[in-house]
């Protein structure tokens, strides 16, 4: 399978601040990718690089094997819903659909029309007078009706209330199922990602901490609970990602390809949230363990 996004040593600096540092990543086609990380970890930067709104300071990024925004054809293959879902506040919903039609050769007018009807958006209403959820839906409609091969969404639900958030993600999933489009969406909420994504990329401290299919991540990560100061060390195929200690017991998050058979540990399946939090933490304070009293 070919890569949707492939980066090599990708670095982006704003003046002296490093937003993304030496990021090497390959995301295969046909996934709904969740890009998670704390605020300021470089999620937006990575996505803006992927759609060609930013240029790398160093390294390279390719989308479908080409430099982002290299030409009209490349632009056509990638749909983008930017953070805060910008729309032209003075233009009506109908104007936005016309805008999409005028600027995209593969525009699917009937799909756009259908979606707007489904959402119950008034065609004459100006985008500036829509609610946050409606505006996000409008932006998503424009991105979807473009019929892209990759849909990039930058914190699409961050400003939405829980109901609007669920609706948005649901419609997104329907679209993915219907049109076999790859998706990459960023969020700082694991719950959103868990609901829709089958591939995960964790960014923290401007570096990629982990990437892989959700299923694989879940099967290779374990939560170990056992006595403090265990007698035997873990084998070297097992990597401790995070460890927390109380006076008497330790909780470890461990990556291991094989099953862990060690009587001194209680082995539990790690949740996605466990994994995400552990890797985010790893980015912050690499070798040191945190003690929880």
């Amino acid at each position, binding site marked *: 399978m070919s890569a949707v996004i492939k980066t090599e040593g990708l670095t982006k600096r704003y003046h002296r601040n490093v937003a993304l540092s030496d990021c090497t990543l390959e995301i295969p086609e046909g996934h709904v990718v969740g890009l998670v990380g704390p605020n300021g970890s470089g999620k937006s930067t990575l996505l803006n690089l992927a759609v060609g*709104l930013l240029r790398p300071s160093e390294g390279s990024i390719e989308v479908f094997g080409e430099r982002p925004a290299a030409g009209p054809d490349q*632009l056509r293959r*990638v749909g983008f819903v930017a953070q805060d879902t910008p729309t*032209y506040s*003075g233009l009506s919903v109908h104007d936005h659909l*016309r805008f999409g039609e005028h*600027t*995209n050769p593969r525009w699917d007018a009937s799909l756009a029309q259908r979606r707007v009807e489904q959402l119950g958006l008034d065609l004459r209403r100006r985008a500036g007078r829509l609610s946050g959820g409606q505006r996000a839906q409008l932006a998503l409609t424009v991105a979807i009706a*473009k019929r892209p091969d990759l849909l990039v969404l930058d914190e699409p639900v961050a400003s939405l209330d829980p109901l609007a958030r669920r609706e948005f993600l649901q419609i997104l999933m329907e679209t993915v199922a219907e049109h076999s489009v790859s998706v990459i969406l960023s969020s700082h909420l694991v719950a959103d990602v868990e609901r829709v994504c089958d591939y995960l990329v964790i960014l923290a401290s401007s570096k990629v901490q982990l990437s892989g299919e959700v299923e694989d991540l879940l099967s290779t990560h374990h939560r170990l609970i056992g006595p403090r100061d265990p007698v035997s060390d873990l084998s070297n195929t097992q990597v401790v990602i995070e460890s927390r200690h109380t006076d008497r017991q330790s909780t470890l998050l461990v990556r291991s390809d094989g099953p862990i058979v060690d009587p001194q540990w209680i082995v539990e399946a790690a949740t996605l949230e466990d994994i995400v939090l552990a890797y985010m933490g790893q980015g912050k304070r690499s070798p040191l363990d945190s003690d929880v009293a």
Partner: protein
Amino acid sequence: MIWLAWRQFRVQAAVGLFVLIVFAALFGVTHSHVLHLYNTAVKPCGKVGDCHSVTNAFLNHYDFYEHLVQFSIAAPALIGAFWGAPLVAREFESGTIRLTWTQSEMRVKWLAAKLAVAGAASAIFVGLFSLMATWWSSSWDQVNGDPYSTFDVRNIVPVGYALFAFALGVALGVLIKRTLPAMAATFVTYGVVRVFYNLHIRPHLMSPLTSTTKFYAPFAGGAGPAFNGPPLREALIVSNTTLNKAGKVIGQNGGIGANGEFNFSLPNKVGGHAYFDGVGRCPNAFPATARPPVGTEIHSGPGPATVKAMNTCINSFHLTSVLKYQPLDRYWTFQWYELGSYLILAALLSVFSFWWVRRR
């Protein structure tokens, strides 16, 4: 993309159209009155004799004219600030640039469409306005008889200013990415460029003609001409220097010294010597009646005997006036040259905007 550019611009276009209609109405309503006044008062006065008071009254009759001139000067700057600067800056500010630049058309095409629509509107707006203003003022200009004094607000040059101001606004918007600062920067930069051009470039677009005359006292009465100015009132004066006998420049602007002053210091007591300020001591005696109250200087209104003494004094120094000027028959050449230079500036600024947008 043209569609989007037009859709976004149409409110501003409507405002522009409204302003044009208001001015057209004002021009239309007042023009017949101006013409009537000209035909009944100014035109026949030539046959009767003294036209001076009539023409002055005619020129001063219109307050509207003053406002018209002010608007003519401001219009290109307003276009630059209100049509040019927000064109791209507002898209950055509201984040819609991220929507537009990620559709299937190249951003260069997007900028080209925006520039074409709003740029054409700027040229048409100012072009039509200048056409109306030139038409309305034709009789006024004829009476005024100094075409270079209204050079910037007539005929074709305003179109060049408008396109320059517009392209400047766009470029500054692209660079600054925020609407208000870009607008302010456009105003200031436009003003500076225009002033610089008027003072330092326009007079030298072609090498000026030179007229050398004897230096005369710049006041009426007595001997000599009434005015020590240019031989042609309609000319664009490049410089008017005063030279002494040795050929050294001792004065500007038709007078003595850097500011072109013309003063005599009269003696405090009868029989003393007067000084021609900045030149030297007068060899001749001044009449007793020339002596004003102690310590004051004469600027105007000296009596005939005093004027005679002053002229004698001036003549004794053998001063010359060197006038460099652009004659009236170069007016249209200058209009085209100036239009051309501002169009070139506009083109360069647009190239910069394209380059910057592509490179990001």
